[in-house]
């Protein structure tokens, strides 16, 4: 999953990125609010799900994102 996410980051940012679980999406990748929105929408398309805005607000690192996608995919989201 992390490879897919890295590929989506690259597609949105237009440059290669190295990510780990701890990568902070805003701080480390230098994304602004628009970048984050485009990125979230690309993730939503790829995994065929919608991430509600309150969930988006809780996502800070790549690990947070992976957890959110997994929970939403399996329908166990809080």
């Amino acid at each position: 999953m992390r490879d897919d996410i890295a590929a989506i980051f690259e597609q949105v940012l237009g440059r290669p990125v190295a990510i780990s679980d701890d990568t902070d999406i805003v701080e480390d990748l230098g994304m602004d609010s628009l970048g984050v929105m485009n990125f979230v929408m690309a993730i939503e398309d790829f995994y065929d799900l919608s991430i509600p805005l309150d969930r988006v607000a809780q996502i800070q690192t790549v690990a947070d994102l992976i957890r959110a996608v997994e929970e939403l995919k399996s329908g166990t989201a809080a």
Partner: protein
Amino acid sequence: MTILAKHAGYRQAYDALLAHGVDPLNVRFDSVLSPTEGLWNGRRTILLGTNNYLGLTFDSDCIERAVEATRGQGTGTTGSRVANGTYDGHKRLEEALADFYGREHAMVFSTGYQANLGVLSTLVGRGDHLMLDADSHASIYDGSRLGMAEVIRFRHNNPDDLYKRLRRLEGVPGDRLIVVEGIYSMLGDTAPLKEIAAVKRETGAYLLVDEAHSLGVLGRTGRGLAEAAGVEADVDFIVGTFSKSLGSVGGFCVSDSPDFDLLRIVCRPYMFTASLPPGVMASTHEALKKLRAEPALRVNLMRNATRLYDGLTAMGFQTGPEPNPIVAVTMPDQTTAGVFWKMLLESGLYINLAVPPATPANASLLRTSISAAHTIQQIDTALDIFADVGRKLGFLQSDRRRAAGAL
């Protein structure tokens, strides 16, 4: 460190503009002379950014009604309708709005912002789903945060993306409410409402349209985009404001929902704020009568809007997708936009500088809004000033005469 230090990022962006002598947040008019002219720095300045679509702020009947009501009933209600009661003016304005829209119910709020806060936070609650266009106005986003519903954002003006997201919710319990705007306030583009209404029907969602910028602007009788698109029957709730085409302040919601009046006892941004003063209700009511009685206002408005849009587009400026009374020119960056804006003002033309994060796609925009009260001469003067500043800043590709000739 101060308590506000966390917002320092915004200060940096603002300081960068200030460094170029651009201060869009401190434009002080010595006086406002008419719907289309103000005095700035001692100079007569064309107002082309005030959302005063029908130019009714100086209408003598509207002023007269406001004066009468103020003399007769005082300057303010000094409290909410729950606490201090409903004035005759509240009731009559609500009846007039319901009659105008051909709906059973209408409710008046103290601002359009509060109408969105109140309606969006109350119609949907925990376990429901609120579907917002990504480019929604701040009041819509804020309303979504005040309530307990799950908020899902769809791509701007993209009914397919909306449909896809509603499909993903299949089998999930809870009401769905789709929220779109008639005319989007930054680029002046309209929502594809026919297609959105079709999605609504197919998915069993409710549909709310914020006609803030389209009331009195679109539709055969001025009811807005829902009327223009011929889908009023599919729109469950219409929200709007008095602060633009009706020339005052306040907001409203109309609907045929049978138990609509429940909102009056559960909607906090309605219950816990002072109601509109008598003078405001009286001028608004009169302005609504004018809007209905004088379709020529809309004809003039669209004539002016099209003239400005066509003129700017022909000069080679990057404008929005359709001619409407909001015409925005996209600038390459914030500093250029700021300098352009300042030179326009110093040349006698006031418009809005719109910069991220308030803008779609983080664009830097020169945003104009057009009035029925502008004369053709004023529109042409505005075009000349745009051409002049554009030339000085190295923007212009083609001649403004071509624009005029095309009209």
